[in-house]
């Protein structure tokens, strides 16, 4: 059996709110004992509402935040967020939700893309530049964008830049924290297509965090539903979508707006019945 790209064992994260005089400190369990494994080339979607711990989980597996307890194994290597080696940093990268906030406004796109190489590899500046140019075309931008600043780009283009930056080090897996929820519908479709194209080309593994079930259904192989720090359901996409097991998953499905004609017809009929 091959080693999974990512293995997480019993991961927890507590936040302690500072207490004061006569006010005891409170412990918030943001993530409570999460375990899963992820094979190469697969997409795991993590679903849940705000405050359920899905972004905390993302920060732990990208080694930004330390876990309170539990183990993270990346390509079989045990990772510790307190001492991230260059090797591990190259294996895991993240794309954030808001492409307006995640790019430095004073840094040219070329420098944005070269910086991971500068920090983590010993490539010469000409080699770095060449790689960055190649990556720009891969994500659907032009080489002449190299010397521009982030404010010259639209939201969708910025998200392409953020994806390009994350891919510069050829990571083993990529964490995508709500990558399309700040984007318009048509741009969202382009970015989702890009992610699929890149996955086919490089055999990438994604951890895709989202609260939009229609996007999840389109992109995921496996779905993990989180609720107040717990994983309440983790199965294949088809299993979750055809027969959701947990009560909360069903609530999520019921809340998701539906665009099929039958559903609209039923709603209009209900409304007319209410008026008469």
């Amino acid at each position, binding site marked *: 059996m091959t080693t999974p790209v990512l293995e997480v064992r019993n991961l927890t994260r507590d936040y302690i709110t500072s207490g004061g005089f006569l006010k005891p400190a409170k412990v918030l369990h943001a993530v409570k004992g999460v375990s899963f494994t992820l094979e190469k080339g697969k997409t795991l979607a993590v679903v849940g*509402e*705000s405050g359920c711990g899905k972004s905390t989980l993302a920060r732990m597996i990208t080694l930004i935040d330390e876990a309170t307890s539990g183990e993270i194994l990346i390509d079989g290597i045990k990772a510790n967020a307190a001492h991230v080696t260059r090797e591990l940093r190259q294996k895991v990268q993240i794309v954030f939700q808001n492409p307006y906030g995640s790019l430095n406004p004073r840094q040219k796109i070329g420098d944005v893309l070269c910086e991971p190489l500068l920090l983590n590899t010993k490539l010469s500046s000409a080699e770095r530049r060449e790689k960055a140019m190649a990556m720009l075309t891969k994500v659907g931008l032009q080489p002449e964008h190299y010397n521009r600043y982030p404010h010259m780009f639209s*939201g969708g283009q910025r998200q392409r830049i953020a994806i390009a930056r994350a891919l510069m080090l050829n990571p083993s897996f990529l964490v995508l924290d709500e990558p399309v929820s700040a984007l*318009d*519908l*048509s*741009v*969202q*479709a*382009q970015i*989702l*297509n890009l992610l*699929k194209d890149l996955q086919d080309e490089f055999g990438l593994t994604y951890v895709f965090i989202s*609260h*939009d*079930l*229609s*996007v999840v*259904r*389109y*992109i995921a192989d496996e779905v993990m539903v989180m609720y107040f720090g717990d994983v309440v359901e983790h199965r294949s996409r088809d299993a979750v979508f055809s027969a959701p097991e947990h009560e909360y998953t069903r*609530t*999520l499905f*019921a*809340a*998701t*707006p*539906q*665009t*099929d*004609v039958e*559903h*609209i*017809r039923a*709603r*209009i009929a209900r*409304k007319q019945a*209410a*008026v008469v």
Partner: protein
Amino acid sequence: MSLLEIKNLTVAFDTSVGLFKAVDGIDIAVDNREVLAIVGESGSGKSVAMLATMGLLPATARVTADVMRFEGRDLLTMSDSEKRKIIGKDIAMIFQEPIASLNPCFTVGFQIGEVLDKHLGLKGRAAHNRAVELLQQVGIRDAEDKLKAFPHQMSGGQCQRVMIAMAISCNPKLLIADEPTTALDVTIQKQILDLLVGLQQQTGMGLIMITHDMGVVAETADRVIVQYKGHKMEEADVLSLFENPQSNYTRALLSALPENAVGDRLPTVSDMLFTAAPGVAQ
């Protein structure tokens, strides 16, 4: 007669490269008891059109229209002081970012009280009682306590409920909701949409939903206007729009929905428009 009637609305801004038309010749009409959805992507001018109606655009905007009438009264020739009596009272608006549109320095109760005082002249006990009643109406439990809360002490969904409470405080005839649920989770989104549609049906007001989310349109609207780059692409009742979209742009938008994906890749709006529709203005 329509509740709000706008004909040939154009909103232009001066830019360094000449006049930019954010809204170009759009007609909008809403009746009592009707939910109209205006759909479009960012930059389609859907918010600008409504802000122009409310008179909330900066002075640099050039607003022109052939007709802009609310209940038969001409909004174009009306003086500012007369307009202020209608805006906020008979026409109310709620915005996308509930936390950003409440004032962080004042309690919720103070901010609701301000509206009641300005438009209805309610003060003291009467204003307090009405504020409690409003919060209960929008589904906030322990309304008495929440009046003393500051916006940062409440969740996004609760703040949006407070915004709705302020908007309906004067029993408006028309409520304009500009992306009311974009910043919220799906479960909270459902609650807020149910609340808005429920209030609309109870009070019989007109409701304009500005959104980019086809799901929200499908769940709430009676009639839909699709806008693209300042132009109206299509206007239809909700069922015919989803069943049989007339314009290429609407068709492209609908096929870009992930749930309608056929095969492995999503068709994007640009490939649909540039292959199928040479007539669409770029």
